[in-house]
């Protein structure tokens, strides 16, 4: 086993275990902390694929910003294991079925994809480096990029409007 493989298995086990713990833990704060570990593990996978930019942006945006807001909300509402309402049994069943259906769709979609012949480019792929990513983003995909920036702008304006409503 090479060092990369050892890291791959370690990160995979860590990611799946933390994801399960995130769903399973009763205390919402613990769920958030497990989810942060999941993000770290996934960023580790990105690094293994030589997509360093993606890895660090994943950390900055998800672990650094969004999860902090989650923590804010949960801490200020003082949610903990006692106040967490128990969902009713049928709702849980529905959740399991919906999740299972999603998994089925994924498997069906990936079954025929030509993945077997394409090995993962560990440590050799160049597309994830910031230089190549920037070039393809601003040459080949300028229009989608601009459109998504309009989307972000409207989200920002919406947030400001909501925040100003009560003044």
């Amino acid at each position: 086993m090479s060092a990369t493989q050892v890291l791959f298995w370690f990160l995979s086990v860590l990611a799946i275990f933390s994801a399960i713990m995130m769903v399973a833990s009763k205390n919402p704060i613990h769920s958030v902390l497990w989810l942060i570990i999941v993000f770290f593990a996934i960023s580790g996978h990105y690094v293994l694929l030589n997509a360093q930019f993606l890895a660090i942006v994943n950390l900055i945006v998800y672990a650094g910003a969004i999860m902090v807001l989650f923590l804010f909300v949960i801490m200020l509402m003082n949610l903990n294991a006692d106040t967490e309402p128990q969902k009713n049994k049928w709702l849980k069943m529905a959740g399991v079925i919906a999740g299972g259906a999603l998994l089925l769709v994924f498997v069906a979609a990936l079954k025929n994809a030509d993945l077997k012949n394409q090995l993962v480019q560990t440590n050799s792929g160049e597309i994830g480096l910031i230089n190549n990513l920037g070039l393809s983003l601003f040459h080949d995909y300028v229009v989608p990029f601009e459109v998504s920036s309009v989307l972000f702008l409207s989200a920002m304006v919406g947030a400001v409007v909501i925040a100003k409503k009560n003044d």
Partner: protein
Amino acid sequence: MLLSIDWIFIIEKCILIAVIIGISLVVAMYETWAERKVAAIMQDRRGPNRAGVFGILQPMADGLKLFMKEEIIPNLSNRFLFVLGPGLAMLTAMMTSAVVPWSSHLDIKGRMVSLQVADINIGILYIFGVVSMGVYGIMIGGWASNNKFSLLAAVRGASQIISYELAMGLSFIALLMLTGTLSLRTIVEQQQDHLYNFIYQPLGFFIFLICAFAECNRTPFDLSEAENELNFGYHQEYSSMKLGFYLFAEYVNMFISSAVMATLFFGGYDIPFVNDISFGQQHGQNVLAILQGLSLFVKVGVFIFFFMWVRWTIPRFRYDQLMRLGWKILIPLALINMLATGFIILLRNNGWHL
């Protein structure tokens, strides 16, 4: 064998990491001493002068005191997270040092030993990422204490850090547009050949400096631990060395952020007014590397003194003033700086000579 890796490389990096962490801790220790000395000079006092000559052993005595104190963990707190909080604060403070180039490289029997732990091509973003992780030490510690005042102080501190991160990121962007690279070593090498980035980006530097103050929780932005007016802050329930870790992490942060500022804006390990390459050829690479390291540390020392100078001269902001400064002044300024930089680069690319 299990792994086929370059063992010498691993050992070399491990030694380097150990040395850097050691230096960071020693510097942070003596920062506490220097802070008290600087405060004393500014207030016309003598400062610590009992432990050793000029009180030079004072940090040791302080550390010993913190270790000997009774360790209290509140009954209703979340024990694991309560201990994790200060650990995280220290960890994130230390992690930034991985991408700072401390000097060029040593030449040990023909092997070039780079004095930087990792020259990754996302260096600046890595720093930004680690800084954004710094919130967790505060938030987890404040929440796990199970004390309303700690929690409020944690939220206060975390929202301060998040607000100033934005302006910091925007001032990074203007710098990146000039350098065209994210690797800190390349940025230093560019500054060796040209003027320091401070000349091109004075406004960016000042925004970065103010944000660094806020990120380190230093006065005038130390609202998360404003002990004499707003309660003791997120570490209210902490005692003994766990409190020490929180306070110590602040000093480590100060050291590392000084190093980052020196690297990004003041040429890093470049020796001012000396042509480093020809000096290296005259006196040998190792002498050069050591002098370059010293040069970086002198710059860092100046910044650390500046941190202390500001602490003992400027009073603390009120919380609404702090938020107004962050959101209504620094972010627009950083945006204008970014647009102006972009405009000038565009003009120069189209044949204007400015």
